[in-house]
């Protein structure tokens, strides 16, 4: 997976490059709009992260020029989050829009969503370790034991399973499962995860649902499980 970061703020560009490289992305960095546009035109990237405030040529201009020739997916980054900015960005051909300060895993989730968008239909059967999930029948088994899940619990499990190996923040979970698109400052997601964990991991030796403190939650089969076919999502799809 090849990715271009166009960002003039050195610290931001560096941590994004390091973080994304660790997640298995091949990352190029451009420090200004002109270089960014040149790279984006000459090379083929899977997705581009584009800052709005750039020296010389701003993000909107880069995007306009790029769209004349290429349809590479673009996520725009900005510290300004007024509605008209957002409309402007999306109107100029951006595929997504992220407001600073954004969380790194949020960016990761959006990048993966953008890359996934172009792929074939999602499978309806998922297997993580000995956990089997049938999305159509809305049933989950572990070691042939049927798990007794409520509707919300199943929705939560399905979300985590579809993005297995990927850390999901509480904000993303609240938005996807409950359609709550703001920071609610409640511990609803913690409680929901606690309940789900009790049902899918409680009686079993291998734990699948993991907490990444301060970041979110991830569903994956870790060491000692011979059926581990799902490392970090970024690497599998590379």
């Amino acid at each position, binding site marked *: 997976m090849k990715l271009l970061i166009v960002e003039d703020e050195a610290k931001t560009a560096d941590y994004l490059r390091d973080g994304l490289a660790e997640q298995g992305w091949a990352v190029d960095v451009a420090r200004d709009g002109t270089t960014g546009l040149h790279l984006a035109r000459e090379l083929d990237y899977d997705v581009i992260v584009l800052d709005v405030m750039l020296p010389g040529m701003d993000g909107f201009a880069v995007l306009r020029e790029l769209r004349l020739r290429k349809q590479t997916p673009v996520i725009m980054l900005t510290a300004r*989050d*007024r*509605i008209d900015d957002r409309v402007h960005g999306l109107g100029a051909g951006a595929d997504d829009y992220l407001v600073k*300060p954004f969380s790194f895993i949020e960016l990761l989730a959006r990048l993966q969503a953008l890359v996934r968008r172009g792929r074939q239909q999602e499978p309806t059967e998922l297997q993580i370790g000995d956990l089997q999930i049938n999305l159509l029948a809305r049933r989950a088994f572990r070691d042939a034991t049927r798990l007794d899940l409520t509707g*919300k619990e199943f929705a939560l499990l399905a979300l985590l399973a579809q993005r297995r190996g990927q850390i999901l923040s509480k904000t993303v979970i*609240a938005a996807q499962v*409950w*359609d*709550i*698109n*703001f*920071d*609610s*400052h*409640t*511990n*609803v997601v913690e*409680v*929901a995860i606690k*309940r789900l964990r009790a049902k899918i991991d409680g009686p079993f030796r291998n734990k699948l649902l993991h907490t990444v*403190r*301060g*970041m979110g939650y991830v569903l994956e089969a870790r060491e000692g499980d011979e059926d581990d076919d799902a490392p970090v999502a970024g690497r599998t799809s590379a």
Partner: protein
Amino acid sequence: MKRVRDLSIAQRLAAMFALAALLVFALVGVALYHVLQTQIVRYQHAELATKLRYVVGSVALCESRERWLKVEDKVQNLISSDRSTKVWAWSSNPDYRIGDGEPTISAATSRRDLGMGRLLLPGAEYPYRTLQEQVPALGNRPAVRVSVAIDSKPYVSALRWFTLIMLALGVCGIGLVALLGHWIARVGLRPLQRLSNEAQTLSPSNLSQRLQPAQLPPELGRLTGTFNGALDRLEAAYTRLDAFNADVAHELRTPLTNLMGQTQVALSRPREAAQLEDVLQSNLEELERMRDIINDMLFLSRAGQGDIALDRVCVPLAEEVAKTGEFLEYLLEEAGMQLRIDGAVDAWIDTSLFRRAMTNLLHNAVQHATPGSEIVVELRGGDAAHSDCGSGARVAVRNHGAGVPPQHLARMFDRFYRVDAAREHRGERHHGLGLSIVKAIASLHGGTVFADSREGRTTVGFSLATPQPHSPA
């Protein structure tokens, strides 16, 4: 040239006084002139009439040439005693004529048989006033027309003098009125000057300073009262802002202190990777706390400026409340509480903002209610129990618990306000902006917030107005 709006009040008043004086003097002058003129004409007429009667009386008795000579003598006496008087007699017989009855004079005097006429004699400066009468024939004497004329020079020059003096007096009077007016206005405006001096001494260092209305005339007293009212409001706003800044500083400094302190401690000696990881994770939590505060503050500030676009749709509120209830279901369950939705009403709302407000209200209720109790969300239409999006709505969340002391009710919606500063909700990210956000969302929907607490029953809620036709719906 000074423009009118650059003039001082005293100058304006002086100019207006002068204008008024001009008008009064002009009116009085014109009236006096007119009266004087009428009087002069009447006086001239009386004099002419007396003289005419004297001549006509002699002529009327004359029936022969001999008597006519006596009449001529009488006339001669009259003329010589008063040089400004002229007398003519005209008849068909040249023997019975007096004065050089040139045809012009005759024509001029004969134009009017009765009443006064005017006659400009050659070489005279002013016209003569004339009066004539026809004396019927007697004996040998034919009918005679007698004309008497007096010089109007004294009258005209008197009238001229009068006009000149009136004009001079008028100009002086107007000037005097303007000067006096200016002085009076300055004296009258002295309290304003005092007030202005007093206002200049107001300084931002002493916000409780006010103007003294006691020594001022009533008009300025009212102005001072109004101005002091504005100062009161400014002081209150300033004090609120000051307290708000202190709150923001406190709320942001606490996580900053933690971040700096923990990081410094961690770096002060070599650490195990696991210990550093702990520090990083704790730092992340503090950073998230700061981000939350900043985001909420930005939301409030933009809502205050009306900078948030509403995407309003007409929906049944009960459904939206139920969705929020579903989100908070686990929290309710853990506290053993039930959520009951009472009433049904449709309203124009931005669903995302409405859910945010409901989440804050319900979360607040869950935190303060007695475990095992019931939380009731009461939905009412603006003017009917069931309405079709046309009458606004009222959403009230009621819970049973310790209740809120009355002195806190009004301030519950203030930013960073906490009923009990010492109370901390364990495990909750709570920074005292939740109800402020409810208030901001309500006012974005043209509504207000309310709170009530008695006998352990606390009701907190907000109203929603129907959008005006021109606003985005």
